[in-house]
């Protein structure tokens, strides 16, 4: 006599959520333990994938290749960090991919066309990303446009503006050759460990602290959990949502700097599809698109799973047409196992 399909009426959410919630023994220590266990398990599936590839090819588990994986994960990862906040509020940001491209172009404008000093150009680019986020936030929060549409519109606008501003040509950073060091400078000479990866790691820490230790993080969760109740509790939800989208925009700006630096050029095209990759990383990491739940560690693991898969499949020379099939299946299986585990737990 079982009735696993039915959610108890006290919750709008999926049965697994409730089942999961039900096991909370509640002491903070236990909660924390469970939290880390959960991430440990997500981490375990990442490790599993790494082990499989390591066995399959001697070229996979080498310092250089691992750094390559981290490098590949950096741009999407930085985007995913910011998006984690947005998704926890129950929102979504489709503009991060083309927004990043536009920020790269702006870096070209600031540094090459306007000839600003490096630090000023970089700062302005990041702030420009924040501006994109701010506009998204205002559209969503003040005008009341649903996040999907507001950021879809911004996605198209940013894609167009990148072409308009750049004159549809890549902009090269000839005036500031140091610009490419931001991403590429090797900070551990032996293994070519690039500075960009170090920046990514620092941003992970920043994002994790913001999300778990600050009032911004608390409100992020509150809004995602029940926006109306949060507003009636006297939290200025509108303003905080603007702040959160702006924050996501700052990450987009940084990603724009990193990717332009990596390519030593601002490419005015592309970026479409990157938003789905970033969102996938967030969701594989256990953040719910319904809002209210999520973690930075999860997002990082999600981003790494994606990067390891892409790299590993190339390393073991899986024919390209099969690669996306394999990634698709692994995403499904990983998320499914995660569900199973949570339901069991």
């Amino acid at each position, binding site marked *: 006599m079982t009735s696993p399909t039915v959610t108890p009426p006290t919750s709008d959410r999926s049965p697994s959520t409730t089942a999961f919630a039900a096991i909370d023994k509640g002491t903070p220590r236990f909660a924390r333990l469970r939290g880390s266990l959960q991430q440990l398990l997500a981490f375990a599936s990442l490790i599993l994938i790494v082990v499989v590839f390591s066995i399959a090819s*001697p070229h996979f588990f080498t310092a250089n290749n691992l750094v*390559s994986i981290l490098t590949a994960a950096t741009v999407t990862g930085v985007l995913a960090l910011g998006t984690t906040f947005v998704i926890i509020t129950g929102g979504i940001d489709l503009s991060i991919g083309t927004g990043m491209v536009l920020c790269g172009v702006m870096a070209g404008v600031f540094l090459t066309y306007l000839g600003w000093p490096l630090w000023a150009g970089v700062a302005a680019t990041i702030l420009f990303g924040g501006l994109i986020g701010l506009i998204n936030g205002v559209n969503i929060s003040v005008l009341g446009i649903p996040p999907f549409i507001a950021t879809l519109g911004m996605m198209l606008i940013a894609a167009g503006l990148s*072409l308009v501003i750049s004159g*549809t040509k890549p902009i090269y950073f000839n005036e500031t050759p140091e610009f490419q060091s931001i991403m590429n400078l090797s900070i551990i000479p032996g293994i070519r460990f690039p500075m960009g990866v170090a920046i990514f790691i620092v941003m992970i820490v920043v994002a994790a602290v913001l999300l778990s230790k600050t009032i911004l993080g608390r409100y992020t969760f509150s809004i995602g959990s029940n926006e109306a109740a949060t507003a009636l509790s006297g939290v200025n939800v509108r303003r905080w949502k603007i702040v959160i989208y702006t924050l996501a925009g700052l990450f987009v700006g940084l990603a724009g700097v990193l990717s332009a630096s990596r*390519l030593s*050029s601002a490419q005015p095209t592309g970026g479409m599809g990157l938003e789905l990759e970033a969102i996938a990383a967030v969701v594989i990491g256990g953040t719910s698109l319904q809002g209210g739940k999520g973690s930075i560690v999860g997002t990082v693991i999600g981003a790494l799973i994606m990067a390891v898969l892409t790299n590993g499949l190339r390393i073991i020379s899986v024919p*390209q047409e099969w690669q996306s099939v394999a990634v698709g299946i692994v995403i499904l299986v990983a998320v499914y196992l995660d569900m199973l585990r949570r339901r069991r737990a």
Partner: protein
Amino acid sequence: ADSGATTGGDAGGDTPYVALVSKGFQHQFWQAVKSGAEQAAEEFDVEITFEGPDTEADVDQQIQMLQTALDKGPAAIGFAALDSQAAGPLLQQAKDSNIPVIAFDSGVDSDIPLTTAATDNLAAAAEAAKHMADAVGHEGKVALVVHDQTSVTGQERRDGFVEYMEENEPDIEIVDIQYGGGDQAKSADLAKAIIAANPDLKGIYGSNEGSAIGVVQAVKELGIDPAALAVVGFDSGKAQMDAIRDGLMLGAITQNPVGIGYETVKAAVEAINGEDLPETIDTGYYWYDAANIDDEEIQAVLYE
């Protein structure tokens, strides 16, 4: 579609491994390049892999593929750069690791590649323009449906065409240039819009396979008399060849993609063996139309 899936990448065997990173993968053109490369691989007994980003706008993805290729420790690399400068650091890395680099399809703006196997796109596009001018009687309006706005090939095939017209055909007016991403349905829809906006249009040039077929599709859907609207294409593929045979398309420029792939691998093998290479390997281009499509020489460079 098999490129040494099982053991690929293992430089441990005695057959040298050559990694080819192209600009694309899914299109017929790139598949033809790949088949040429595979022919050469068999002939010279090397192992190859062939990869390319999903779209030609995806510079970042290409850079990642190049990085992975380098990490596999190949004996040589064939590389068709989407943006030479973006690939600079990695090319340097290849040089530092003594991995010879062969550029293909379009030049790499760097002195690292030992040679370049490519078509002269500017000249090829000018050839297309010349045939277009003949077809429209050296006067009237023509338009372009280009596959890409930012890539070098897109720009060269546009500029080669436009410059030829500007220099040689004062009575021909270019009324519109639109970009359809090489997607057939999208190119068809935008060609229809161009035709609607310019009822007296006399010719349209499609700058790659998808663009050209899209234009043909538009002509078909609008039921326009092919005699009144000249369509000039680029590349081959079955649909384009059929359109030429059916008279819907005047003719097209074809490169020699199989030759590009073949020459790239051949040059790579020569580089591995320490032989000297010419600065460029011109793989050529050909104009083909209903008159010469079945010639042996043309058939050899066409692909379905």
